[in-house]
């Protein structure tokens, strides 16, 4: 191996690059091992996933030897092992079930649906944490957006009123968090938890006050956007042919956020406030102003995610509807290293598990009791990701630290 590496090095490619390619290749082989056992290929021989997964493990181990870094190498190896394992499981289960669950176009559409509220909240989390304010309150802001989006669409009669109400509700709750944690310099985790409680109390109160425990379905929900020429195409038609407007908006927001944070002067100010507020202050940037703006923006974004949750997916509201999605989004922020694209990728992974968790029971009969356990899948995956992968990713330097004006 070392001889090969040396040869490559002479040709001008560094060992580092080779190691990284190997690591990614190992992970990729793991995914491939699983994929081969699924429709449409549906390899029925156990040897196939085991072989491919085994190759992935070897590639990962080689990458480790070449010094790719323990974390990345171990990640590649674990993905390969996991892929082989899942592939093996897939070859054991019957083809009809597999074909019922793994309709890729439908699964992709469901993944995007599930990932959208997460992605909105995660983008919010990125803005907030990039400015140096930890936002545990995303969960509550999501919930506020969900309820007031529904209420607005119901009472004011159109989906975009719902959108405005939900976004404003999220922003208002974020303003509370901002005031307490920026001006009053409270512990941001405690304040975020308080904000979550507040959202539970407020939405619960008004839900019962307005709907006496029963939602209504006679609401102008967020429309879907049908692309006429794509609608009839085989795979893409079902996957993205008619997606909800808010999914498209979210996809745009991911790109816009990336540009805003990394390619504009506003983004530079945001990051400087989160990394070294004192220096930013010295240069005349209003630390408090930037932080207020970022936190309130994060609430608005999480509120948007909430609006999609009720007016786009569930079409009804129930108490504590957000069900931990704000925290999953927070995990996505960390997993994505405080970058919009990375966080969105993480949201897709979590969204995929959620979509899978919803589809799997169908294949095994709704009354099989143990299928309830699938519902825990997104949380298990989040836990594993937080534990294994996130580990030591480095947050903005001033994240979570209140700033005292000089």
């Amino acid at each position, binding site marked *: 191996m070392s001889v090969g590496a040396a040869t490559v090095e002479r040709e001008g490619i560094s060992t580092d690059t080779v190691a990284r390619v190997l690591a990614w290749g190992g992970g990729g082989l793991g995914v491939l091992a699983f994929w081969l056992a699924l429709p449409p290929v549906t390899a029925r021989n156990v040897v196939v996933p085991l072989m491919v997964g085994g190759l992935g493990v070897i590639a990962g181990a080689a990458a480790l030897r070449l010094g790719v870094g323990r974390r990345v190498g171990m990640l590649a190896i674990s993905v390969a092992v996991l892929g082989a394992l899942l592939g093996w499981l897939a070859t054991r289960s019957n083809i009809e079930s597999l074909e019922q669950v793994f309709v890729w176009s439908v699964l992709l559409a469901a993944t995007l649906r599930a990932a959208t509220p997460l992605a909105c909240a995660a983008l919010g989390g990125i803005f907030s944490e990039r400015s140096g304010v930890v936002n*545990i309150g995303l969960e509550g802001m999501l919930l506020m957006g969900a309820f007031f989006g529904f209420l607005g669409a119901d009472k004011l009669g159109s989906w975009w009123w719902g959108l405005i109400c939900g976004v404003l509700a999220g922003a208002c709750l974020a303003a*509370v968090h901002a005031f*307490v*944690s920026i001006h*009053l*310099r*409270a*512990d941001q*985790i*405690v*304040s975020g*938890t*308080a*904000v*979550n*409680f*507040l959202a*539970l*109390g*407020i939405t*619960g*109160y008004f839900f*019962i*006050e307005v709907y*006496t*425990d029963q939602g209504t379905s006679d609401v102008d929900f967020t429309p879907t956007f049908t692309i006429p020429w794509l609608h009839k195409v085989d795979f893409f038609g079902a996957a993205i042919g008619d997606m909800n407007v808010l999914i498209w908006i979210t996809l745009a927001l991911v790109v816009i956020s990336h540009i805003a944070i990394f390619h504009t002067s506003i983004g530079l100010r945001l990051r400087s406030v989160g990394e070294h507020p004192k220096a930013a202050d010295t240069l005349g940037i209003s630390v408090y102003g930037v932080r207020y703006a970022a936190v309130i923006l994060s609430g608005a974004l999480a509120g948007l995610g909430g609006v999609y949750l009720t007016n786009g997916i569930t079409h009804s509201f129930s108490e504590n509807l957000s*069900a*931990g999605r704000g*925290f*999953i989004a*927070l*995990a996505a922020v*960390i997993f994505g290293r405080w970058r919009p694209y990375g966080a969105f990728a993480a949201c897709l992974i979590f969204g995929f598990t959620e979509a899978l968790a919803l589809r799997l029971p169908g294949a095994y009969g709704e*009354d*099989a*009791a*143990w299928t*309830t*356990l699938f*519902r*825990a899948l997104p*949380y*298990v995956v*989040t*836990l594993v990701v*937080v*534990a*294994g992968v*996130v*580990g*030591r990713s480095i947050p903005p330097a001033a994240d979570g630290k209140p700033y*005292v004006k000089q």
Partner: protein
Amino acid sequence: MTTAPTVHPPAAPDPGEESAAGTLARWHRTGGLVAPVITALLAFLVGGLVVLATGSNPIDVYKGIWNGAGLEWFYDVGSNQVGLPFSDATVWFPWDTSSASAENLQQTLILWTTLVLTGLAVAFAFRCGLFNIGGQGQYFVGAYFAIWVGSSFAGMNSALHITLAVVVAALAGAAWAGIAGILKATTGAHEVISTIMLNWIAYYTGLYLFGQGGPLQNDLQPFSPTSNEVVDGARLPVFWGDPLLQGLHMGMFLAFAALVAFWIIINRTTLGYEVRAVGFSPDAARYGGISVARNYFLAMAISGVFAGMAGAVDMLGWRFSIGFSDIQSSSIGFVGIAVALLGRNTALGVGLAALVFAALGNGTAARNIPPEVFDIPEQAGNLSLTIQALVLLFIGADIVILYLWAKTGQKIGVGRRSPL
């Protein structure tokens, strides 16, 4: 706060010239009651404004809560008799132990028992600098195991059976919380995210175990998604009130014991010293030769013991079975957060704060609110949630109080002790 803009060298404080904020800070350091009491009052005041905004009379509401919690019992003094435990003899007692308000008070104290334990679960981790918002999941796991042990082994010696159920539940809670502790210690995974995820995993596991067709669903009614009932021998004896009408059970003494144990561990043992040292500054503790990882794990595990016991006393004390809807509506672990924070993470504080929230929780239970106060009784529950949120918010920002205090006099000269 980080740099004091003063040229004077730090001199010994002049007792005659201490600032108001300084006095308050000393109160803080000595575990004073001023700030928490002001915080709670402020929260109730703002909660009253919320009630006012929704068109109800806040004084009526709070009076309804007070009476619903059975607190009027204390000043309803007369000449009564009380039976001595384990005998037929009676003695004179100033309070009527079988009045309606006495029954309400029993319910408040039952809730107090659970809240003390879930509060301690949050408080112990806090002292180590960890924010355990997984009390709910640890409570669930403890409850599942308590139900499982409590509903099996019929005919076992009662004391042994109860002890076994409580110990198993406590260990289960410890293991569940310990997962988050180990992850924090080894990979640095943030305990807030991991404990929330563990909550949801425990939640769905419970829905599976006791739900339709689940392995621990009851044997008698195949269409009722609840567990088996805890057998008589494993039920905690009732020492005040009617055992058939949810009287006050012996679990209350377990809560007292837990408070004492918490105080001793934190203040009088090496473990407590190390936990506090890590809580103040992990780096300094590490430099001082304390294993931060080990203390993270132990602090979480001990927290889990408290929360697991909370699940056990609930199941063995008055619920006796757990079902789909019980799991879906439980939020007792989250109230523990408010209890711990209001109680400043001390044993005495948790005991008192648990009383506040138990009274609030029981007083706002739908059955206790007179119909003329709220048109929809369930609303009272959301009011109690809102007040909890306000308490957290004001405690998180207890600098509000310092700020207002200092406005009247000198500028703030002391740092705020973070609740973390």
